[in-house]
Protein backbone atom coordinates (compact mmCIF):
# COMPACT_ATOMS: atom_id res chain seq x y z
CA UNK A 1 0.00 0.00 0.00
CA UNK A 2 1.38 3.38 -1.00
CA UNK A 3 0.23 5.90 1.57
CA UNK A 4 0.70 9.66 1.54
CA UNK A 5 0.21 11.66 4.73
CA UNK A 6 -0.33 15.41 4.57
CA UNK A 7 1.01 17.00 7.76
CA UNK A 8 1.22 20.54 9.11
CA UNK A 9 3.56 22.26 11.51
CA UNK A 10 1.67 24.41 14.03
CA UNK A 11 2.55 26.41 17.16
CA UNK A 12 3.02 24.12 20.14
CA UNK A 13 -0.10 23.76 22.28
CA UNK A 14 1.54 25.40 25.29
CA UNK A 15 3.14 28.21 23.25
CA UNK A 16 2.55 31.74 24.51
CA UNK A 17 1.08 33.54 21.57
CA UNK A 18 0.91 37.25 20.87
CA UNK A 19 -0.89 39.07 18.08
CA UNK A 20 1.49 40.69 15.56
CA UNK A 21 1.81 44.45 15.10
CA UNK A 22 -0.59 44.55 12.11
CA UNK A 23 -3.21 42.37 13.84
CA UNK A 24 -3.01 40.00 10.88
CA UNK A 25 -1.62 36.88 12.56
CA UNK A 26 0.48 35.89 15.56
CA UNK A 27 4.00 37.14 16.18
CA UNK A 28 6.02 34.15 15.03
CA UNK A 29 9.24 35.15 16.82
CA UNK A 30 10.12 32.88 19.76
CA UNK A 31 7.31 30.43 19.03
CA UNK A 32 8.02 26.74 19.39
CA UNK A 33 6.47 24.64 16.64
CA UNK A 34 5.31 21.04 16.62
CA UNK A 35 3.54 18.49 14.45
CA UNK A 36 -0.22 19.12 14.45
CA UNK A 37 -1.85 16.64 16.85
CA UNK A 38 -4.36 14.91 14.57
CA UNK A 39 -1.70 14.77 11.82
CA UNK A 40 0.46 12.78 14.24
CA UNK A 41 -2.41 10.28 14.49
CA UNK A 42 -2.71 10.21 10.68
CA UNK A 43 1.01 9.41 10.44
CA UNK A 44 0.64 6.72 13.11
CA UNK A 45 -2.23 5.08 11.20
CA UNK A 46 -0.14 5.13 8.00
CA UNK A 47 2.86 3.53 9.73
CA UNK A 48 0.64 0.82 11.23
CA UNK A 49 -0.94 0.02 7.87
CA UNK A 50 2.52 -0.22 6.31
CA UNK A 51 3.70 -2.56 9.09
CA UNK A 52 0.70 -4.82 8.47
CA UNK A 53 0.46 -4.75 4.68
CA UNK A 54 3.82 -3.49 3.45
CA UNK A 55 4.32 -0.57 1.10
CA UNK A 56 5.56 2.96 1.46
CA UNK A 57 4.71 6.00 3.58
CA UNK A 58 5.39 9.42 2.08
CA UNK A 59 4.85 12.57 4.13
CA UNK A 60 3.86 15.79 2.49
CA UNK A 61 3.91 19.26 3.99
CA UNK A 62 3.63 22.83 2.77
CA UNK A 63 5.34 25.71 4.52
CA UNK A 64 8.51 27.72 5.05
CA UNK A 65 12.02 26.47 5.89
CA UNK A 66 11.15 25.86 9.56
CA UNK A 67 8.82 22.95 8.72
CA UNK A 68 11.91 20.89 7.77
CA UNK A 69 12.26 19.89 11.46
CA UNK A 70 8.71 18.53 11.56
CA UNK A 71 9.28 16.64 8.30
CA UNK A 72 12.46 15.08 9.81
CA UNK A 73 10.46 14.10 12.89
CA UNK A 74 7.96 12.23 10.69
CA UNK A 75 10.81 10.52 8.85
CA UNK A 76 12.38 9.58 12.20
CA UNK A 77 9.11 7.97 13.27
CA UNK A 78 9.23 5.75 10.19
CA UNK A 79 8.03 7.52 7.05
CA UNK A 80 10.13 6.49 4.03
CA UNK A 81 10.47 9.80 2.23
CA UNK A 82 9.01 13.29 2.12
CA UNK A 83 7.90 16.11 -0.13
CA UNK A 84 8.39 19.65 1.17
CA UNK A 85 6.30 22.19 -0.72
CA UNK A 86 8.25 25.37 -0.10
CA UNK A 87 6.05 28.38 0.46
CA UNK A 88 6.47 31.36 2.75
CA UNK A 89 2.96 32.64 2.14
CA UNK A 90 0.93 29.74 3.55
CA UNK A 91 -1.07 32.18 5.70
CA UNK A 92 -2.33 34.14 2.69
CA UNK A 93 -3.60 31.02 0.93
CA UNK A 94 -7.07 29.77 1.79
CA UNK A 95 -7.98 26.12 2.39
CA UNK A 96 -8.64 25.55 -1.32
CA UNK A 97 -5.30 27.12 -2.28
CA UNK A 98 -3.36 24.91 0.13
CA UNK A 99 -5.27 21.80 -0.95
CA UNK A 100 -4.46 22.60 -4.61
CA UNK A 101 -0.74 22.63 -3.76
CA UNK A 102 -1.03 19.30 -1.97
CA UNK A 103 -3.20 17.74 -4.70
CA UNK A 104 -0.70 18.73 -7.41
CA UNK A 105 2.09 16.99 -5.46
CA UNK A 106 -0.01 13.90 -4.76
CA UNK A 107 -1.32 13.26 -8.26
CA UNK A 108 1.91 12.09 -9.95
CA UNK A 109 2.58 9.71 -7.03
CA UNK A 110 -0.75 7.85 -7.56
CA UNK A 111 -1.02 6.64 -3.95
CA UNK A 112 -3.55 4.04 -2.74
CA UNK A 113 -4.41 6.05 0.32
CA UNK A 114 -4.10 9.66 1.40
CA UNK A 115 -4.36 10.56 5.08
CA UNK A 116 -4.58 13.93 6.81
CA UNK A 117 -5.35 14.99 10.34
CA UNK A 118 -8.91 16.06 11.05
CA UNK A 119 -8.03 19.72 11.53
CA UNK A 120 -5.12 21.99 12.31
CA UNK A 121 -4.64 23.29 15.83
CA UNK A 122 -3.88 26.80 14.56
CA UNK A 123 -6.53 27.70 11.94
CA UNK A 124 -8.89 24.85 12.78
CA UNK A 125 -10.61 24.94 9.39
CA UNK A 126 -10.81 21.13 9.25
CA UNK A 127 -11.17 21.01 5.48
CA UNK A 128 -7.89 20.06 3.80
CA UNK A 129 -8.59 16.34 3.50
CA UNK A 130 -12.17 16.73 2.29
CA UNK A 131 -11.14 19.30 -0.34
CA UNK A 132 -8.25 17.03 -1.43
CA UNK A 133 -10.73 14.22 -2.07
CA UNK A 134 -12.80 16.56 -4.24
CA UNK A 135 -9.78 17.84 -6.21
CA UNK A 136 -8.47 14.31 -6.75
CA UNK A 137 -11.98 12.94 -7.47
CA UNK A 138 -11.61 10.24 -4.77
CA UNK A 139 -14.04 8.93 -2.16
CA UNK A 140 -13.38 10.07 1.41
CA UNK A 141 -14.33 9.53 5.02
CA UNK A 142 -13.69 12.23 7.62
CA UNK A 143 -13.30 11.83 11.39
CA UNK A 144 -11.82 8.35 11.00
CA UNK A 145 -10.65 6.45 14.08
CA UNK A 146 -9.66 3.03 12.73
CA UNK A 147 -8.72 1.78 9.28
CA UNK A 148 -8.89 -1.82 8.17
CA UNK A 149 -7.80 -3.04 4.76
CA UNK A 150 -10.28 -5.37 3.03
CA UNK A 151 -10.15 -7.32 -0.24
CA UNK A 152 -12.02 -4.58 -2.07
CA UNK A 153 -10.74 -1.48 -0.30
CA UNK A 154 -11.19 -0.24 3.24
CA UNK A 155 -13.50 -0.64 6.18
CA UNK A 156 -13.16 2.34 8.53
CA UNK A 157 -14.69 3.46 11.80
CA UNK A 158 -16.04 7.00 11.70
CA UNK A 159 -16.86 9.08 14.74
CA UNK A 160 -20.30 10.69 14.84
CA UNK A 161 -21.53 13.19 17.40
CA UNK A 162 -22.39 12.46 21.02
CA UNK A 163 -20.57 9.14 21.42
CA UNK A 164 -21.95 7.44 18.27
CA UNK A 165 -19.88 5.68 15.62
CA UNK A 166 -20.34 4.09 12.22
CA UNK A 167 -18.44 1.62 10.03
CA UNK A 168 -18.01 2.71 6.43
CA UNK A 169 -16.79 0.67 3.46
CA UNK A 170 -15.09 2.39 0.57
CA UNK A 171 -12.85 1.51 -2.37
CA UNK A 172 -9.26 2.69 -2.76
CA UNK A 173 -7.68 4.98 -3.75
CA UNK A 174 -9.31 7.11 -1.08
CA UNK A 175 -8.76 10.02 1.29
CA UNK A 176 -9.28 9.71 5.04
CA UNK A 177 -9.09 12.45 7.65
CA UNK A 178 -7.98 11.02 10.96
CA UNK A 179 -9.39 11.94 14.36
CA UNK A 180 -7.05 12.02 17.38
CA UNK A 181 -7.08 9.16 19.84
CA UNK A 182 -7.59 6.13 17.60
CA UNK A 183 -4.09 4.82 18.29
CA UNK A 184 -1.23 5.29 20.69
CA UNK A 185 1.43 7.53 19.18
CA UNK A 186 4.96 6.18 18.82
CA UNK A 187 8.10 8.09 19.66
CA UNK A 188 11.03 8.30 17.27
CA UNK A 189 13.81 5.91 18.28
CA UNK A 190 17.48 6.91 18.27
CA UNK A 191 17.97 4.61 15.30
CA UNK A 192 14.98 6.23 13.58
CA UNK A 193 16.42 9.72 14.11
CA UNK A 194 19.74 8.56 12.67
CA UNK A 195 18.10 6.96 9.64
CA UNK A 196 15.93 10.01 8.97
CA UNK A 197 19.03 12.05 8.14
CA UNK A 198 19.62 10.05 4.97
CA UNK A 199 16.01 9.80 3.80
CA UNK A 200 14.90 11.69 0.70
CA UNK A 201 13.15 15.05 1.13
CA UNK A 202 12.16 16.38 -2.25
CA UNK A 203 11.59 20.12 -2.39
CA UNK A 204 9.13 21.71 -4.78
CA UNK A 205 7.71 25.23 -4.99
CA UNK A 206 4.22 26.47 -5.76
CA UNK A 207 5.64 27.74 -9.07
CA UNK A 208 7.04 24.26 -9.89
CA UNK A 209 3.58 22.86 -9.31
CA UNK A 210 2.05 25.50 -11.54
CA UNK A 211 -0.44 26.49 -8.87
CA UNK A 212 -1.55 30.09 -8.67
CA UNK A 213 -4.70 30.13 -6.62
CA UNK A 214 -5.79 33.59 -5.45
CA UNK A 215 -7.77 33.28 -2.20
CA UNK A 216 -11.57 33.48 -2.16
CA UNK A 217 -11.71 33.95 1.61
CA UNK A 218 -9.28 36.04 3.63
CA UNK A 219 -8.45 36.41 7.30
CA UNK A 220 -8.57 40.18 7.69
CA UNK A 221 -7.93 40.70 11.36
CA UNK A 222 -6.94 38.79 14.46
CA UNK A 223 -8.03 39.86 17.94
CA UNK A 224 -8.39 38.50 21.44
CA UNK A 225 -11.76 36.78 21.86
CA UNK A 226 -14.59 38.68 23.46
CA UNK A 227 -15.37 37.48 26.92
CA UNK A 228 -18.63 35.57 27.05
CA UNK A 229 -19.04 35.91 30.79
CA UNK A 230 -17.57 38.30 33.33
CA UNK A 231 -15.10 36.29 35.34
CA UNK A 232 -14.37 36.97 39.00
CA UNK A 233 -10.75 35.99 39.49
CA UNK A 234 -10.02 34.66 42.96
CA UNK A 235 -6.45 35.28 44.07
CA UNK A 236 -4.24 34.59 47.05
CA UNK A 237 -2.61 31.39 48.24
CA UNK A 238 -4.24 28.13 47.11
CA UNK A 239 -5.95 27.93 50.50
CA UNK A 240 -7.22 31.52 50.33
CA UNK A 241 -8.47 31.07 46.78
CA UNK A 242 -10.19 27.80 47.74
CA UNK A 243 -11.88 29.42 50.74
CA UNK A 244 -13.02 32.36 48.61
CA UNK A 245 -14.46 29.97 46.02
CA UNK A 246 -16.36 27.99 48.67
CA UNK A 247 -17.94 31.27 49.85
CA UNK A 248 -19.03 32.07 46.29
CA UNK A 249 -20.44 28.60 45.72
CA UNK A 250 -22.32 28.79 49.02
CA UNK A 251 -23.72 32.32 48.95
CA UNK A 252 -23.76 33.40 45.29
CA UNK A 253 -24.22 30.20 43.30
CA UNK A 254 -25.92 28.33 46.15
CA UNK A 255 -24.85 24.89 45.14
CA UNK A 256 -23.27 23.88 48.46
Amino acid sequence: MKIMVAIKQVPEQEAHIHIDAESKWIDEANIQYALNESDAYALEEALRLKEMHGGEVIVLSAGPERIATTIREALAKGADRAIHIECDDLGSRDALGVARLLAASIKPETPDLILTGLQSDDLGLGQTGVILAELLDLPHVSLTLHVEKTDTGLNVKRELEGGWFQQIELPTPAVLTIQSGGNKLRYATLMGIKRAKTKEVRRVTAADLGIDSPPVAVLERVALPQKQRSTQMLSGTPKEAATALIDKLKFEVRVL
Partner: protein
Amino acid sequence: MSGIVVVLESHNGQVSRISWEALAAAQKLASQTGLPLGAVVIGPDTETQATEASTKAVSDVIRIDHALLDQYTPDGFTHALDQFFAKDKPDYVVFPHTYQVRDYAPALAARLGRVLISDIVAIDEGPVFTRQLMQGRLAGTYRSLGSGTCFISVQAGAFRADAVESGSAQISKYSPTIEPHQIRTRPGEPFLGAAQTVDLASAQLIVSVGRGIKDADKIPVAQALATALGAELAASRPICDNGWLPMERQVGSSGHTVSPKLYLALGISGAIQHLVGMKGSQCIVAINKDPDAPIFEVADYGIVGDLFEVVPALTEAIKAAKQ
Protein backbone atom coordinates in the same frame (compact mmCIF):
# COMPACT_ATOMS: atom_id res chain seq x y z
CA MET B 1 -32.86 33.36 -7.79
CA SER B 2 -30.05 34.71 -5.74
CA GLY B 3 -30.05 35.40 -2.04
CA ILE B 4 -29.34 33.32 1.04
CA VAL B 5 -29.99 29.62 1.47
CA VAL B 6 -29.85 27.84 4.81
CA VAL B 7 -29.38 24.06 4.66
CA LEU B 8 -31.25 22.46 7.56
CA GLU B 9 -30.01 19.12 8.89
CA SER B 10 -32.38 16.61 10.38
CA HIS B 11 -32.17 13.54 12.55
CA ASN B 12 -34.94 10.95 12.66
CA GLY B 13 -37.13 13.19 10.50
CA GLN B 14 -36.79 16.22 12.78
CA VAL B 15 -34.87 19.40 12.06
CA SER B 16 -32.04 19.51 14.61
CA ARG B 17 -31.67 22.28 17.16
CA ILE B 18 -28.34 23.49 15.72
CA SER B 19 -30.10 23.87 12.34
CA TRP B 20 -32.52 26.38 13.90
CA GLU B 21 -29.49 28.19 15.29
CA ALA B 22 -28.07 28.31 11.74
CA LEU B 23 -31.43 29.67 10.57
CA ALA B 24 -31.23 32.39 13.24
CA ALA B 25 -27.77 33.29 11.88
CA ALA B 26 -29.12 33.27 8.31
CA GLN B 27 -32.00 35.56 9.35
CA LYS B 28 -29.45 37.97 10.81
CA LEU B 29 -27.48 37.87 7.54
CA ALA B 30 -30.71 38.44 5.59
CA SER B 31 -31.62 41.51 7.62
CA GLN B 32 -28.06 42.89 7.20
CA THR B 33 -27.88 42.34 3.46
CA GLY B 34 -31.52 42.76 2.54
CA LEU B 35 -31.38 39.50 0.57
CA PRO B 36 -34.22 36.95 0.46
CA LEU B 37 -33.72 33.81 2.56
CA GLY B 38 -34.75 30.30 1.54
CA ALA B 39 -34.45 27.09 3.54
CA VAL B 40 -33.41 23.72 2.11
CA VAL B 41 -34.30 20.36 3.62
CA ILE B 42 -32.64 17.31 2.13
CA GLY B 43 -33.26 13.58 2.45
CA PRO B 44 -35.32 10.67 1.13
CA ASP B 45 -38.65 12.23 2.16
CA THR B 46 -38.57 15.63 3.80
CA GLU B 47 -42.28 16.38 4.13
CA THR B 48 -42.24 16.67 7.94
CA GLN B 49 -39.12 18.82 8.06
CA ALA B 50 -40.41 21.05 5.25
CA THR B 51 -43.70 21.62 7.07
CA GLU B 52 -41.80 22.53 10.22
CA ALA B 53 -39.49 24.92 8.32
CA SER B 54 -42.41 26.58 6.53
CA THR B 55 -43.61 28.07 9.84
CA LYS B 56 -40.46 30.22 10.04
CA ALA B 57 -39.67 33.60 8.51
CA VAL B 58 -38.21 32.38 5.22
CA SER B 59 -39.34 33.26 1.70
CA ASP B 60 -39.58 29.63 0.64
CA VAL B 61 -38.73 26.09 1.64
CA ILE B 62 -37.18 23.75 -0.91
CA ARG B 63 -37.41 20.00 -0.51
CA ILE B 64 -34.47 18.18 -2.10
CA ASP B 65 -35.72 14.61 -2.05
CA HIS B 66 -34.13 11.50 -3.52
CA ALA B 67 -34.25 7.85 -2.49
CA LEU B 68 -30.44 7.72 -2.59
CA LEU B 69 -30.28 10.38 0.14
CA ASP B 70 -31.81 7.91 2.60
CA GLN B 71 -28.53 7.42 4.40
CA TYR B 72 -26.16 10.35 4.51
CA THR B 73 -23.15 10.04 2.20
CA PRO B 74 -20.84 12.91 1.24
CA ASP B 75 -21.20 11.97 -2.44
CA GLY B 76 -25.01 11.98 -2.37
CA PHE B 77 -25.32 15.28 -0.52
CA THR B 78 -22.59 16.98 -2.58
CA HIS B 79 -24.15 15.93 -5.90
CA ALA B 80 -27.65 16.94 -4.88
CA LEU B 81 -26.74 20.35 -3.47
CA ASP B 82 -24.25 21.12 -6.25
CA GLN B 83 -27.02 20.61 -8.83
CA PHE B 84 -29.43 22.75 -6.87
CA PHE B 85 -26.93 25.59 -6.36
CA ALA B 86 -25.92 25.49 -10.05
CA LYS B 87 -29.52 26.34 -10.86
CA ASP B 88 -30.05 28.74 -7.96
CA LYS B 89 -26.63 30.47 -7.62
CA PRO B 90 -27.15 31.79 -4.10
CA ASP B 91 -24.99 34.62 -2.73
CA TYR B 92 -24.70 32.91 0.66
CA VAL B 93 -25.18 29.35 1.86
CA VAL B 94 -25.47 28.86 5.62
CA PHE B 95 -24.97 25.47 7.31
CA PRO B 96 -25.02 24.32 10.92
CA HIS B 97 -21.44 23.30 11.81
CA THR B 98 -22.08 19.61 12.41
CA TYR B 99 -19.93 16.53 11.79
CA GLN B 100 -22.05 15.88 8.70
CA VAL B 101 -21.52 19.37 7.28
CA ARG B 102 -17.78 19.13 8.00
CA ASP B 103 -17.80 15.94 5.94
CA TYR B 104 -19.26 17.33 2.71
CA ALA B 105 -19.56 21.14 2.69
CA PRO B 106 -15.81 21.77 2.04
CA ALA B 107 -16.01 19.48 -1.03
CA LEU B 108 -19.20 21.14 -2.22
CA ALA B 109 -17.63 24.60 -1.94
CA ALA B 110 -14.44 23.40 -3.69
CA ARG B 111 -16.52 22.01 -6.57
CA LEU B 112 -17.67 25.58 -7.17
CA GLY B 113 -14.16 27.00 -6.71
CA ARG B 114 -15.11 28.42 -3.33
CA VAL B 115 -14.21 27.75 0.31
CA LEU B 116 -16.31 27.21 3.42
CA ILE B 117 -15.76 29.75 6.17
CA SER B 118 -16.33 27.19 8.87
CA ASP B 119 -17.43 27.23 12.49
CA ILE B 120 -18.32 30.93 12.68
CA VAL B 121 -19.47 32.48 15.96
CA ALA B 122 -20.54 35.95 14.79
CA ILE B 123 -21.70 37.88 11.73
CA ASP B 124 -21.01 41.62 11.51
CA GLU B 125 -21.51 44.40 8.98
CA GLY B 126 -19.65 43.79 5.73
CA PRO B 127 -20.53 41.04 6.10
CA VAL B 128 -17.54 39.73 7.98
CA PHE B 129 -17.54 36.47 9.89
CA THR B 130 -15.75 35.75 13.15
CA ARG B 131 -14.31 32.32 13.86
CA GLN B 132 -11.99 31.06 16.56
CA LEU B 133 -8.29 30.47 15.92
CA MET B 134 -5.52 28.79 17.91
CA GLN B 135 -7.96 26.53 19.77
CA GLY B 136 -10.07 29.49 20.90
CA ARG B 137 -7.17 31.67 22.08
CA LEU B 138 -7.80 34.18 19.28
CA ALA B 139 -10.70 35.38 17.17
CA GLY B 140 -10.25 35.93 13.43
CA THR B 141 -12.40 38.05 11.12
CA TYR B 142 -12.94 36.56 7.65
CA ARG B 143 -14.31 38.05 4.47
CA SER B 144 -15.36 36.29 1.29
CA LEU B 145 -13.83 37.58 -1.95
CA GLY B 146 -14.99 37.45 -5.55
CA SER B 147 -18.44 37.07 -6.97
CA GLY B 148 -19.16 33.40 -6.22
CA THR B 149 -21.21 31.92 -3.42
CA CYS B 150 -20.02 32.52 0.14
CA PHE B 151 -20.35 29.34 2.23
CA ILE B 152 -20.45 29.57 6.01
CA SER B 153 -21.12 27.08 8.81
CA VAL B 154 -22.35 28.23 12.22
CA GLN B 155 -20.97 26.95 15.53
CA ALA B 156 -23.36 25.24 17.96
CA GLY B 157 -24.60 27.69 20.57
CA ALA B 158 -23.40 30.83 18.77
CA PHE B 159 -26.92 31.90 17.80
CA ARG B 160 -30.14 31.26 19.68
CA ALA B 161 -32.63 28.79 18.26
CA ASP B 162 -35.44 30.59 20.12
CA ALA B 163 -34.51 33.80 18.27
CA VAL B 164 -35.77 32.33 14.97
CA GLU B 165 -38.57 34.51 13.65
CA SER B 166 -41.84 32.86 12.67
CA GLY B 167 -43.59 33.23 9.37
CA SER B 168 -45.28 31.29 6.66
CA ALA B 169 -43.49 30.01 3.59
CA GLN B 170 -44.48 28.03 0.54
CA ILE B 171 -42.89 24.66 -0.07
CA SER B 172 -41.48 23.56 -3.41
CA LYS B 173 -39.63 20.48 -4.57
CA TYR B 174 -36.34 19.98 -6.35
CA SER B 175 -35.45 16.53 -7.68
CA PRO B 176 -31.72 16.03 -8.21
CA THR B 177 -30.32 13.38 -10.53
CA ILE B 178 -28.15 10.92 -8.64
CA GLU B 179 -26.94 7.58 -9.99
CA PRO B 180 -26.15 4.73 -7.57
CA HIS B 181 -22.57 4.43 -8.87
CA GLN B 182 -21.89 8.06 -7.93
CA ILE B 183 -22.12 7.09 -4.27
CA ARG B 184 -18.75 5.55 -3.52
CA THR B 185 -18.93 4.99 0.24
CA ARG B 186 -21.17 2.46 1.98
CA PRO B 187 -22.10 3.63 5.47
CA GLY B 188 -23.21 1.17 8.15
CA GLU B 189 -25.80 1.77 10.86
CA PRO B 190 -24.67 4.15 13.61
CA PHE B 191 -23.88 2.48 16.93
CA LEU B 192 -23.16 3.77 20.44
CA GLY B 193 -19.51 3.45 21.39
CA ALA B 194 -19.12 2.97 25.11
CA ALA B 195 -21.39 1.39 27.66
CA GLN B 196 -23.38 4.23 29.19
CA THR B 197 -23.19 3.83 32.95
CA VAL B 198 -23.10 7.50 33.92
CA ASP B 199 -25.66 10.13 33.03
CA LEU B 200 -23.58 13.29 32.63
CA ALA B 201 -26.35 15.06 30.72
CA SER B 202 -28.53 15.23 33.82
CA ALA B 203 -25.77 15.67 36.42
CA GLN B 204 -26.17 18.81 38.53
CA LEU B 205 -22.54 19.06 39.62
CA ILE B 206 -19.60 18.11 37.41
CA VAL B 207 -15.88 18.13 38.12
CA SER B 208 -14.02 17.88 34.81
CA VAL B 209 -10.32 17.30 34.17
CA GLY B 210 -8.11 18.21 31.23
CA ARG B 211 -4.52 17.92 30.07
CA GLY B 212 -3.33 19.87 33.13
CA ILE B 213 -3.78 16.73 35.25
CA LYS B 214 -0.62 15.49 33.48
CA ASP B 215 -0.78 11.81 34.44
CA ALA B 216 -3.24 8.94 34.95
CA ASP B 217 -1.87 8.62 38.50
CA LYS B 218 -3.16 12.09 39.30
CA ILE B 219 -6.83 11.43 38.43
CA PRO B 220 -7.59 10.64 42.12
CA VAL B 221 -6.83 14.32 42.95
CA ALA B 222 -9.86 15.28 40.86
CA GLN B 223 -11.89 12.27 41.98
CA ALA B 224 -11.42 13.30 45.63
CA LEU B 225 -12.87 16.73 44.86
CA ALA B 226 -15.79 15.19 42.93
CA THR B 227 -16.53 12.83 45.82
CA ALA B 228 -16.38 15.63 48.41
CA LEU B 229 -18.78 17.71 46.29
CA GLY B 230 -21.04 14.81 45.38
CA ALA B 231 -20.28 15.57 41.72
CA GLU B 232 -19.81 13.40 38.64
CA LEU B 233 -16.29 13.19 37.25
CA ALA B 234 -15.91 14.12 33.58
CA ALA B 235 -13.02 14.95 31.25
CA SER B 236 -11.93 16.65 28.06
CA ARG B 237 -11.08 14.58 25.03
CA PRO B 238 -7.29 14.07 25.53
CA ILE B 239 -7.90 12.43 28.92
CA CYS B 240 -10.28 9.87 27.37
CA ASP B 241 -8.04 9.42 24.31
CA ASN B 242 -5.24 8.47 26.70
CA GLY B 243 -7.54 5.99 28.42
CA TRP B 244 -7.19 7.74 31.80
CA LEU B 245 -10.98 7.93 32.07
CA PRO B 246 -13.55 6.01 30.02
CA MET B 247 -14.93 7.61 26.81
CA GLU B 248 -18.40 7.84 28.35
CA ARG B 249 -17.10 10.58 30.66
CA GLN B 250 -16.03 12.83 27.81
CA VAL B 251 -17.60 16.28 27.50
CA GLY B 252 -17.46 18.11 24.17
CA SER B 253 -18.48 17.85 20.54
CA SER B 254 -17.49 14.19 20.29
CA GLY B 255 -18.82 13.38 23.77
CA HIS B 256 -21.63 14.67 25.94
CA THR B 257 -23.24 18.07 26.02
CA VAL B 258 -23.86 19.05 29.63
CA SER B 259 -25.53 21.93 31.42
CA PRO B 260 -25.12 21.37 35.16
CA LYS B 261 -25.59 23.96 37.91
CA LEU B 262 -21.85 23.85 38.51
CA TYR B 263 -19.06 22.87 36.11
CA LEU B 264 -15.63 22.85 37.69
CA ALA B 265 -12.93 22.72 34.99
CA LEU B 266 -9.55 21.57 36.29
CA GLY B 267 -6.55 22.05 33.99
CA ILE B 268 -8.79 22.36 30.93
CA SER B 269 -7.51 24.94 28.44
CA GLY B 270 -10.90 25.31 26.77
CA ALA B 271 -10.52 24.19 23.16
CA ILE B 272 -13.60 24.91 21.02
CA GLN B 273 -14.53 21.22 20.88
CA HIS B 274 -14.74 21.16 24.67
CA LEU B 275 -16.49 24.50 25.12
CA VAL B 276 -19.41 23.61 22.86
CA GLY B 277 -20.18 20.74 25.22
CA MET B 278 -20.26 22.73 28.48
CA LYS B 279 -20.73 26.44 27.90
CA GLY B 280 -24.43 26.11 28.70
CA SER B 281 -23.55 25.31 32.34
CA GLN B 282 -25.15 27.68 34.86
CA CYS B 283 -21.92 28.34 36.72
CA ILE B 284 -18.45 27.61 35.38
CA VAL B 285 -15.38 27.59 37.59
CA ALA B 286 -11.97 27.31 35.93
CA ILE B 287 -8.72 26.41 37.63
CA ASN B 288 -5.74 26.67 35.31
CA LYS B 289 -2.10 27.68 35.54
CA ASP B 290 -2.27 29.65 32.27
CA PRO B 291 -4.05 33.00 32.78
CA ASP B 292 -4.57 33.25 29.00
CA ALA B 293 -6.35 29.89 28.71
CA PRO B 294 -9.61 30.32 26.73
CA ILE B 295 -11.56 28.51 29.45
CA PHE B 296 -11.48 31.80 31.39
CA GLU B 297 -13.52 33.44 28.59
CA VAL B 298 -16.54 31.42 29.64
CA ALA B 299 -15.83 31.12 33.39
CA ASP B 300 -17.83 32.84 36.13
CA TYR B 301 -15.06 32.26 38.65
CA GLY B 302 -11.40 31.68 37.92
CA ILE B 303 -8.36 30.67 39.89
CA VAL B 304 -4.97 30.95 38.22
CA GLY B 305 -2.71 28.45 39.90
CA ASP B 306 -1.29 24.97 40.17
CA LEU B 307 -4.23 22.58 40.30
CA PHE B 308 -2.21 20.18 42.45
CA GLU B 309 -2.15 22.86 45.15
CA VAL B 310 -5.56 24.43 44.62
CA VAL B 311 -7.66 21.28 44.23
CA PRO B 312 -6.59 19.54 47.47
CA ALA B 313 -7.15 22.85 49.32
CA LEU B 314 -10.60 23.05 47.75
CA THR B 315 -11.40 19.43 48.65
CA GLU B 316 -10.46 20.09 52.28
CA ALA B 317 -12.46 23.33 52.36
CA ILE B 318 -15.56 21.56 51.01
CA LYS B 319 -15.25 18.75 53.55
CA ALA B 320 -14.96 21.38 56.30
CA ALA B 321 -17.90 23.39 54.93
CA LYS B 322 -20.11 20.32 54.81
CA GLN B 323 -19.42 19.31 58.40
